[in-house]
């Protein structure tokens, strides 16, 4: 099956590497008084200041890492994987909009809403997709 718009299989590991790399970088920045996406605070010093650039870097590293993990090919990319991928994407959009609408109604802080929109769909998609693949593999091993 031809799979368009997907990264090669090895990109998944690169993606996880970037996600992991984001953690010590953010912690290091935090010790130097920088903010990251988890803080949801406006950066001090205006656009393209050192702090703002650090914010952009850490956010890009995390989000591009999640993006690569989410949209890297499986070892065997067949139609059932496509089906699971689309179904997980649908669920991710559902959950994202439920959270967005709930946040819009119950939370006054608009910064948090943008921040949620940045990583919730990708993260939920990855969790749901991997969980379905794990269930598929488990059913295979239980039947021998």
């Amino acid at each position, binding site marked *: *099956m031809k799979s368009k718009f997907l990264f090669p299989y090895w990109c998944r590991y690169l993606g996880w590497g970037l996600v992991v790399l984001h953690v010590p970088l953010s912690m290091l920045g935090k010790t130097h008084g920088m903010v990251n996406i988890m803080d949801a605070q406006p950066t001090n010093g205006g656009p393209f200041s050192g702090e703002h650039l650090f914010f952009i870097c850490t956010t890009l590293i995390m989000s591009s890492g999640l993006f690569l993990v989410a949209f890297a090919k499986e070892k*065997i990319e*067949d*139609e*059932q*994987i496509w*089906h699971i991928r689309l179904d997980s994407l649908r669920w991710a959009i559902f959950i994202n909009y439920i959270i967005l609408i709930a946040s819009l109604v119950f939370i006054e802080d608009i910064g948090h809403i943008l921040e949620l929109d940045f990583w919730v769909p990708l993260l939920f998609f990855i969790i749901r997709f991997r969980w379905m693949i794990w269930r*598929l*593999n488990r*059913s*295979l091993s239980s*039947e021998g």
Partner: protein
Amino acid sequence: MKNTIRIERAIKDMTQADLAEAVSVSRQTINTIESNKYVPSTVLALKIAKVFNKPLEEIFILEDTD
């Protein structure tokens, strides 16, 4: 929709892995089709029927609930 893939495989002495390789899908996909958990696309169903040299209707059978 039920299917006779398991029986046809036994007749041809094929494993799930052999059939998966013949139709370019994973073994997991063949397993879920056999256990009626996944309904294949028309293209995949035709490919499977071709491997067994049988018409599609002999491999995949519609049920009353379909």
